């Protein structure tokens, strides 16, 4: 009981006082995850729509591959990105390791298959309904992709949210490529991992509650946007 009240008071302290360190961590978390999600949507939405509409040899294989990548463990993905960005890796010359950009790249790679796979399913279902009319109107492939993405925008908002939730809540990839460096690459999840390892469980749980509050706020924002569009 005392632990619960301790956590609760920690949360109140964290949320009420403008702690510059916490603001910095929250801001970096949002910057990294929102940028990664935005970039993943920019590529994943049209990619998923193409997979849903276009028939080509190897489509089934591509679909299975994209679906499988949704389950990629963040730690493994972080390791791959680490190897790519490390000094001896193929992209080592960019010197991005242990920077927020490296964290964006890792989260982008994590979110991209989620956005692409969910979009593919959504657009493939819509294509069954729209296909005849689009073909009859001789709408080119690019036009069909744009039309279906626009017409499915409400469902795709949820896809974007699924991607963002994955990005903001993962720790494995960002801790490997970011290194959890104070005032540089420390985000909410890596801060929670650090406090847990130090044994400061109330603070770790309070940070978790803050993370959930942020996720709740972003979801509420998207939900109200969705309601406005409807």
């Amino acid at each position, binding site marked *: 009981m005392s632990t619960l009240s301790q956590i609760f008071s920690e949360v109140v302290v964290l949320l009420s006082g403008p702690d510059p360190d916490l603001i910095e961590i929250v801001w970096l978390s949002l910057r990294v995850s929102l940028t990664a999600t935005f970039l993943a949507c920019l590529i994943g939405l049209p990619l998923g729509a193409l997979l849903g509409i276009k028939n080509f040899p190897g489509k089934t294989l591509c679909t299975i591959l994209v679906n499988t990548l949704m389950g990629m463990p963040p730690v493994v993905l972080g390791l791959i990105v680490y190897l790519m960005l490390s000094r001896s890796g193929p992209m080592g010359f960019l010197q991005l390791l242990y920077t927020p950009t490296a964290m964006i790249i890792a989260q982008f790679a994590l979110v991209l298959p989620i956005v692409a796979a969910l979009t593919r399913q959504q657009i493939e279902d819509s294509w069954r*309904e729209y296909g*005849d009319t689009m073909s*009859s109107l*001789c709408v080119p492939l690019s*036009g069909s992709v744009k039309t279906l993405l626009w*017409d499915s925008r409400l469902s795709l908002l949820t896809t974007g949210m699924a991607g963002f939730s994955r990005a903001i809540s993962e720790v494995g990839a960002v801790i490997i490529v970011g290194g959890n460096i104070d005032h540089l690459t420390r985000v909410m999840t890596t801060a929670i991992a650090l406090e847990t390892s130090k044994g400061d469980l109330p603070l770790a749980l309070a940070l978790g509650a803050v993370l959930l509050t942020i996720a709740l706020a972003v979801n509420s924002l998207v939900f109200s946007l969705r309601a406005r569009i409807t």
Partner: protein
Amino acid sequence: MLPLEIKDVALTVNETHILRNINLQLTDNGITIVMGHNGAGKSILLRCMHGLLEPTEGKIQWNGDTASDVETRKKQAMVFQKPLMLNRSAAANIEYVLKLRDKPKSLVMKYLQSANLDSKSNQPAKSLSGGEQQRLAIARAIACDPEAIFFDEPTANLDPDATLQIESQIISASQQSIKVIMVTHDIAQARRLADDVVFLNKGTITEHCSADKFFTRPESAEAGNYLSAYIK
């Protein structure tokens, strides 16, 4: 773009003969009604004529051009039994095809008025009633400036009033020198609209003649049975 010539067309899917030995020539404008029992292949034939489906044998040509060529298909439009409305306003649905065909946006109201939907231009198309959606689908098809238009049972599941409104749009399209080819099960409707009738039975055309002749003295036994079954 007439004449439409269909020569020795067959369509086989998974060893099932859906269309067999189809030969047909349509030379005149006006309304051609395609009739036949369920599963006779009427809708499939319509899709083949429109170039949405490639026959496995034979050829379909519009004034010498292959039906499935994009340029040939752009001169046609099709209205389906269940109208597909884009997830936007009624006006935006018309605007969509005007943009596709490089036509000015200012024509939107003209086409909405032709469907008696000008007062609902800003309403989401999906919120319109079934009859209104079908009228909008027809206006959208006509906005493509087609030389031929296909209707696949456009009034199925509509009430008599909505059906008559759709029929007046079809007649109006025909009066604008658009070739109309339509599938219907409604014999009364076929009598009201048809200039000529194509009768399909088990994937084969058993009769093609003027509407007057078809409804008074059908030549094939299958057409006679079909008409008598419905008249009873």
